[in-house]
């Protein structure tokens, strides 16, 4: 059973966090927390369990290409092409959903500002 759309929030934020380049586990968790506005807080157990799953599903891979803050003790993870593709698909899906929500709310008379708040 491969990962399908819609992505689970954790998977989504993990993939999203890797868009800008490879990260190690701790930095990855920090980025996920930041980008999710504190909604997704990963501790080591769940983080690596999810990484391993996404790795097995070919969405994420360990990378030898290391960024500037290279730390030999750690593994760095990067998006695979499939992962990047899936994230993009999810982004488009979410955009479509957002459009739908906004249109429906406008139809029912709610002002745009309120709807997007």
């Amino acid at each position: 059973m491969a990962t399908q759309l819609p992505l689970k929030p954790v998977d989504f934020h993990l993939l999203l966090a890797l868009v800008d380049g490879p990260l190690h586990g701790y930095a990855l968790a920090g980025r996920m927390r930041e980008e999710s506005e504190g909604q997704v807080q990963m501790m080591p157990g769940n983080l690596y369990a999810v990484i391993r799953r996404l790795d097995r599903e070919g969405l994420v891979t360990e990378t030898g290409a290391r960024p500037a803050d290279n730390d030999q003790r750690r593994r760095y993870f990067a998006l695979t092409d499939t992962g990047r593709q899936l994230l993009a698909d999810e982004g488009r899906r979410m955009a479509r959903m957002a459009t739908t929500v906004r249109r429906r709310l406008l139809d029912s008379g709610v002002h745009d500002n309120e709807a997007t708040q």
Partner: protein
Amino acid sequence: MTQTSPPRSLLERLFDAMLRLYPKGLRQTYGRDMRTFLAELEVEARETRLGRLKLGVRLLLDAATAIPRAHRWEARWAPAAQSSTTATSPSFRRSFGKEATSMTTLRHDLLVAVRRARHNPGFTLVAALTLALGIGANTAIFSVVYGVLLRPLGIADPAHLAVLSLHRAQDPGDAMGLWPSHLVDIRDEVEGRGGVRRLTSYIFDSVTLLSDGEPEELGSSLMVDGAFFETLGVAPIVGRALAEDDVLPNRRGSVCVISEALWRGRFGSDPEILGRVVSLDDAPVSIVGVMPDNVPLPQAGVQVWMPQGWDVEDGRLSGRLNVLARLEPGADLNVASEVLASAAAKLGDKNPRFEGYTISLRTFRDSLIGSAQPAILAAAGAVGLILLIACANMASLLLSRAVVREREIATRRALGAQRRQLTTQLLIESLLLSSLGGLFGVALAFVLHRVLIGLADGLLPRLYDVRLDLPVLAFGVGVSLAAGLVFGMAPAVWAFTRDLAGAMRGLRHARARHSLLADPRQALVVMQVTVAVVLVTAAALLLRNLAELRSVDPGFRSAGLSGARIYLDDNAYTSDQQEAAYFSDLLERLRATPGIIAAGASSGLPMDPLTIDYDLPYTLPGEEASETLRQAHFRTITPGYLETLGAPLQRGRSIATTDRADTEPVAVINQTFARVAWGESDPVGESFAIYGGRRSLRVVGVVGDVRFHGPSEVTRPAFFVPHSQTTYGAMTVIARTTVDTTATGERLLGRGTQDAATVTRDALTRAAVARAALATDHRQPVHSTFTFSDLERGAVATDRFYGRLLAAFAAVALLLAGAGIYGVVAYWVNESRRELGLRMAVGATGSDIIELVVHRSLRTSLIGLALGLALGLLAARSLEPFLYGVSATDTSALAAVVALSLIAAVLASLIPAINAARIDPIRALRGEQ
């Protein structure tokens, strides 16, 4: 592990333990990275004080969800996926739909509970730590209950092994051993009758072991008859036990069995130990077996067992034989007791000396641990009360949370949630909390267990059997789960008895007016305060008692006094003259040592657990020997002993060097003896007789009473005879040093360091005794050394142990009850913001508000205090056997209880009260936080 690694934190160890539970693949690939992650988190957590604890909780919750998840995913990728995952396959779900669904729901509930706990780490931590205190203390005490009272003894059928004691019919507490001649008679009389299968006898002795090199005094040696090991039914770990064939008539045999400790220590676990010949008291003896440690044979710590045929003529064995009886399976102890009592009556007919004596039986277990049992059970009861307080705290916290979630619950019920679903959800939440509490509790138990073992050293029987092993840990886990179930029910039940409609309308402030009993949390606080006060009362009484015991005058001056026990080898010292000469030589040498001002020796010391007491019946002139029921404590002493001890001479003279074997037999008696036997008149010059009237002693002096068995003892009549006239080979030599060491110590080492000076001084004195002993006869080792301060401390050690233990319990109880009060008051303040804000808006000052809040909280606490005092006074009655100088209604102790409890109650409500006084009335009235 040979490689040295940096010390790991508790969290790291916890994490590593949890890491093992992850699937192998994940662990191997990412284990190191996960540890690195943890290290980062620890750095982060260090910035806040509670951070590390919170991190611990979060890690546990993380593991709780991640481990099952990871296994599920791992199974999905496993090559044999098809076969191994049938459990979750669609067909499985179809056929076992119901179970599968309920498992899914359960998992969902658990996930919800974990998520909730994670989102509210402060609450989770407080609840779990409260519970952990209760569970930790209970598990640690249960390790003692289990180890001492419940763990199998290691001997065969201990229920049918009994200890005989020969004593006056009126005074079962004052028992003595048997004579070899009686044993023969009694054996003929009872064996095979009344369910008594067999008797076995033994004596405690001390032998000198010599095997390649140093002589070593084995103070805990046993001479046994041929039936001993068969009667106790314990198998050796190496070789064989002793049997009838090993016993030689009228003397020791030429074989022995040694303890596991001796084998491992002195003989380095020598695999060829069997048949090895060693010298015991200068006789060659071959080792035929090794007995396991931690089995009472008949008590733990015996180092060597030797066979011995009792010589009926040997006066040294008189009254020293200990006897055990093996009963038939299913035999009744009472029936066997009657058979032995009638044998004792026959003994009395034959020998007028034993008229009025009887023999009674108690089970082996009872004699081994009997006296410790009530105190251990009392401690277990006290610690159970702590758990009760802790559970009440958890219930109170869960209730508070249920109130907050009331609208959620009401909505869910209105939407059709089944009662069972809601109950399950609430129960799972409380079970999660209690499991967490159990986990911390068990960790805490390991610490407390160590502390407890350290404190109880030498005070509890079978301490070697007190371990934190599976049964004990299972108890801890069981208690946590039970606590979770029982106290998780509270919010669940409460959730359904609430006014649904009111909750839906959000009338939260309405609860502020609730009466005491309408709010179960108030009732819980009353219960907590009550229980805490009961414990504080008991602790206060025990501590008062301890202070009282310490102020008792022991009748001697312990400062600067120490010495050594010397048990002369019977084979080397065969005559009274030799023994007397040995001790007089030794004392001469000792007195010549610089720094020693006084020295003497006695057959027994006050408050010395190793002293064996002899109470002898005595008669006054004109009385028949068989008439007397009076006994007096008997000690043989050298000249100078009483002076060294510091016991004040009140009349006449002390024992002197002029008292020789060929002069008139004399005795110095104590004050109590003088009063009991001669009333107000001067006893000096009077005489009394011992040994059934065969030996008359002239009283030459009276000394002050010495408490032989510790400060709580009622002093008994005692008399001292000269060593030259009644010679003993087992004596204790004591010596006093010259210098006023307190002053000297302070001068030399500065103020507050006299402890160090005392230790040094006592060590020097003991070394001086050991040197004098070596110089007198180098083949005769010193058995053991001691200081009188240690003996005095030891005499109240048990009282101190239980006093401190209960004081610790009381402190924890007070702390937990305080936390309970705090929680409820803080919650009430939060709920009553509008009301308080209104009061402030109409002119109430901050101190008015503080007073109001503290007052409300005290009302509840005072009910608890009153109930607690009443119950505490009732409970104090059961403490009476442990109290010596204090009555169970001691006013100063009770006043302290009231003061302490009030202070705790006020302090606990003060913080929320101060918070209440800081409420901004305008924001409160607007309904803002």
